[in-house]
């Protein structure tokens, strides 16, 4: 036999950085060949910003906020983050269907590296989208008012939020096989979670039955926190979620991340 025998090795740590970077790098190369992906996640929030902030701004009055663009900007940004759920799910599902996941699973690499690689790549892609959205926001009159650190903290929260919802996309991609279903579910997530929130209207302006949904929607809490950090004058509202935004954010995002990542990796192992 000409092949040398390899000494047994210990299992590697959770996910080797090299492996994660290799997978993420691959996704970014794909993006370069097929940049359509960026259009989706930037167009979605931009359309909302233009439609609401530019066309309807005179028709919508928000008490306690003079500038409607500033009021909706945090919601627009979260919509951009949510818009990445569908594309991430499709990227993962394509890997499963194309047999690439089988190939990766036959390699001696960490069981979570591939999925983490997807999330890291999509996070970077979303950040590119975020830069575009911020640029347009500034153009339309959005301004942060609280200085550098709180502004950056707000964007930090956006990154954490995006990271968490991307895992929802990964789970969708691992759990569903029909690409069209994934696409519609992804689109629904982006629209429902952003519009059934306090992102575009204050709670009291929403129809009665939506008010509790919007209040308890964690996306609302993240949006309020960002508005607060950017000094975009938010009406705070009442009720438990409005009074304990940090707690709601911590618990909901933490739980969401835990559940989606654990389920995704388990599905990957047994795919």
């Amino acid at each position, binding site marked *: 036999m000409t092949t040398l025998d390899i000494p047994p*090795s210990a299992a590697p740590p959770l996910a080797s950085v090299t492996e994660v970077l290799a997978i993420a790098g*691959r996704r970014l190369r*794909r993006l370069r060949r097929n940049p359509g992906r960026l259009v989706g996640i930037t167009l979605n929030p931009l359309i909302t910003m233009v439609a609401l902030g530019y066309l309807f701004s005179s028709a919508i009055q928000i008490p306690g906020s003079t500038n409607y663009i500033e009021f909706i900007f945090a919601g627009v940004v979260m919509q951009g983050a949510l818009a990445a759920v569908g594309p991430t799910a499709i990227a993962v599902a394509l890997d499963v269907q*194309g047999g690439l996941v089988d190939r990766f699973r036959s*390699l001696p*690499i960490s069981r979570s590296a591939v999925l983490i690689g997807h999330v890291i790549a999509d996070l970077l892609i979303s950040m590119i989208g975020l830069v575009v959205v911020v640029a347009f926001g500034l153009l339309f009159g959005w301004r942060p008012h609280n200085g550098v650190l709180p502004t950056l903290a707000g964007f930090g929260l956006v990154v954490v939020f995006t990271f968490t919802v991307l895992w929802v996309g990964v789970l969708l991609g691992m759990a569903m096989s029909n690409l069209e279903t994934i696409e519609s579910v992804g689109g629904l997530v982006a629209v429902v979670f952003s519009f059934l929130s306090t992102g575009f209207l204050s709670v009291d302006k929403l129809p009665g039955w939506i008010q509790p949904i919007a209040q308890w929607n964690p996306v609302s809490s993240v949006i309020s926190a960002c508005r607060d950090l950017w000094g975009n004058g938010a009406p705070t509202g009442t009720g438990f979620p409005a009074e304990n935004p940090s707690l709601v954010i911590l618990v909901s995002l933490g739980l969401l991340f835990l559940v989606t990542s654990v389920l995704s990796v388990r599905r990957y192992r047994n795919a």
Partner: protein
Amino acid sequence: MDLAIEVTGLRKTYDKTEALRGIDLSVRTGSVLGLLGPNGAGKTTAVRALATLLVPDGGQAKVAGFDVVAQPREVRRRIGLAGQNAAVDELLTGRENLVLLGRLLHLGGAGARRRAQELLERFDLVAAGDRPVGTYSGGMRRRLDLASCLVGHPQVLFLDEPTTGLDPASRQSLWNTVRGLVADGMTVLLTTQYLEEADYLADQIVVIAAGQVIADGTPDELKRKVGQEWLEVAVALPDRVAAAVAVLAPLAVDEPSTDPVKGLVKLQLRDGMDGIAAAAVALRDAGVDVADFALRRPTLDDVFFNLVGRQPQG
């Protein structure tokens, strides 16, 4: 005897389908096992279990000396898998696909690029190496898929229907590649529906159907199991079949079978070489013009048909 793959009583049930009902296999290091079977026989399931992609419900399987359930990581370090569909990234170039695998296998940037270049050269893909795989032909894609399995220098290769959908030239070239790998010491388990492929490549053949082994042996052993050699005579004019049967019948073990449309007469001769000579003489004396006169041995198609009870698909 040094075994690269040892399987006993392997079972796997999906929901209600019993895909594997206790399969035994053993493959010597450096040899080729052909796993043959009709659609749904359980070939892919067996390969997936051996490649650690699914956990079997019962039985034992060792690959390269390690148990696939207890030490999957050690198995993965020693195997290459080419699934039923080429698992390559269409948007990446061939080279990028190979470099990606090299990086995943911790060869480092330079090491991964060097290995990619070696494999592109070996698989005749240098010219196409920097084109997106989406532009490759089916044959090139298969070659890249096979190259992808080799990045980590595996000892055991699993090929699930490696030539399905390839034209004869591409198939032949892939066969040569596999033979080359085996000459270098590789152990190969390949599944196929092409009997010709198993005949050409495999040292041992295992035929499975409905999750069970129904025959195994070398290609020659299997052919022998199905039956003896027979004489096949094609008469030049189909209306002479009856005349041919009349003179040949006395030389045959039992009544010759005929295909009047093709003008074929088939018979098992009573006594070997003498029988052949006697048959030729008898035909000439009777004035039957012969278009083809040959001793035939059963092909693996006959084996398959005989065992599975219907024509193989594929």
